[in-house]
């Protein structure tokens, strides 16, 4: 039996009458699944993730995580989740370990020191332990963000373009780590990315969104068959262009 970890129903976010970021998005994610949110720039992926974290309030619709409502049980849910984005940082004038220490306090981690050491090694930045965070390269920052995201052994991980600035070698390593954690601990992951390799290698199921609506849902092969492309990249371009054309024709 599949266990629904995430249940998003008719989600809508209207920032203004002429700025509807999310029109109508529904999806479920099962326990232990790696789920991809795919779509062109401005499709509403980040807004959806922010609503799932309670950072932005939906205009309508519901978000249930672990069977609980994010608007009502935010803290309880977030204690079991974590989040990383290439565009959100940790305080720049703190040392790497200080930042991780503070977040391990926030999440109430028991064996903090060991956990931090383990994660620094896992993401291969143990030599940066005492470096000032602001001096890290973009890719090192990204890996630090990932360390933070794994501090509390999250059951659900929300990743917004987590590998945006990683070199191919490290992006591959991060994918392997996610796969391994999925196998070992049945971690559930929701991942947005513009890196098609990331999506096709990692995500078992993909939700394709555009202009705040769901365009397609399924496994990478299913999408390729449905939209006739030899790769996910081709599918992406086909869908994105066709609906951009529709938009231009005022349909």
């Amino acid at each position: 039996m599949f266990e629904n970890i995430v249940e998003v129903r008719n989600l809508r976010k209207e920032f203004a009458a002429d700025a509807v970021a999310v029109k109508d998005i529904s999806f479920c994610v099962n326990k232990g699944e790696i789920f991809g949110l795919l779509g062109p720039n401005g499709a509403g992926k980040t807004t959806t993730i922010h609503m799932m974290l309670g950072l932005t309030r939906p205009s309508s619709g519901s978000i249930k995580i672990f069977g609980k409502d994010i608007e009502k049980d935010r803290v309880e849910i977030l204690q079991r989740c974590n989040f990383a984005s290439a565009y959100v940082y940790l305080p720049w004038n703190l040392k790497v370990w200080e930042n991780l220490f503070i977040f391990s306090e926030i999440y109430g981690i028991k064996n903090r020191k060991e956990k931090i050491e383990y994660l620094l090694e896992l993401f291969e930045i143990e030599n940066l332990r005492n470096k000032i965070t602001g001096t890290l390269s973009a890719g090192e920052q990204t890996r630090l963000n990932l360390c933070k995201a794994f501090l509390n052994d999250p059951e659900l991980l929300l990743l917004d373009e987590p590998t945006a600035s990683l070199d191919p070698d490290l992006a591959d390593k991060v994918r392997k780590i996610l796969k391994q954690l999925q196998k070992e601990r049945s971690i559930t992951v929701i991942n947005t990315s513009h890196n098609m390799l990331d999506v096709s290698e990692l995500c078992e199921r993909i939700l394709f969104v555009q202009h705040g609506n769901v365009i397609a849902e399924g496994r990478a092969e299913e999408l390729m068959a449905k939209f006739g492309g030899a790769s996910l990249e081709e599918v992406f371009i086909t869908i994105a262009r066709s609906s951009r054309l529709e938009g231009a024709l005022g349909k």
Partner: protein
Amino acid sequence: MNLRTVRALLLKYAFICSRNTFRAMDVFFWPLMDLLVWGFLTLYLLKVSSAVPTLITFLIGAVIMWNILYRAQQVISVSFLDDVWNRNLLNIFAGPVRLSEYVAATYVTGILQSLIVLAILSSAAALFYSFNIFEIGLVFGAFFVNLLLMGWSLGLLTTGVIVRFGPPAEALAWAVPFLIQPVSAVFYPVSVLPPFIQPIAKLVPASYVFEGMRQILEHKTYDPNGLLISFALNVVYMLIAAFVFRHFFEEARNKGLLAKYGS
């Protein structure tokens, strides 16, 4: 309210301050400069005019107490701005952090920094001007509490406005205290204000504290009713500030502003 979370946020602030010279100057340097300028000005006034010698105690006492209020207000807004400037706000609120815990942490930093400022300024005043602020007596504790409470409310209101209106409002963190300084009776009694402004000063909790300080320094007595009114006003303003802050925070969440400033 989870004290562990509050402690973690305090630790974050301590790390940020300990490594930021300019932030440390806010606590250690600027208040001292303020004291020295006003202190020497009063020494000069005493020399060239026949001003009453209590003038110097008035002004130095006022500078010390004003800085307590100012620090308490400022640190609350600036510690929020730190999270915005660090683009760390989303990481915090994507974690199991309640708004009340976040605010509590800034309140505690307000207490700590006000106490540090008090320690520095009272020592400097004793050293340079032989002025001992603690001669005011135990009631100084009540003055301190009222100034702190007013600093908290002002700080929280300022932060709320910054949350809601974003970067253009950031300068308020430094400017707000000076908006209310003229009606706070810091350096002069309420009675010298134009009659139509006096009622406004009576609504400002700090005005009772500064009036009380002058009464004690001059006549060795004070009016306990003034302190009670000050406290009651503070309680009302704290509730209003909490309500307004929560409202602005929710509105920011509605407009997706947390995500905008936080990343």
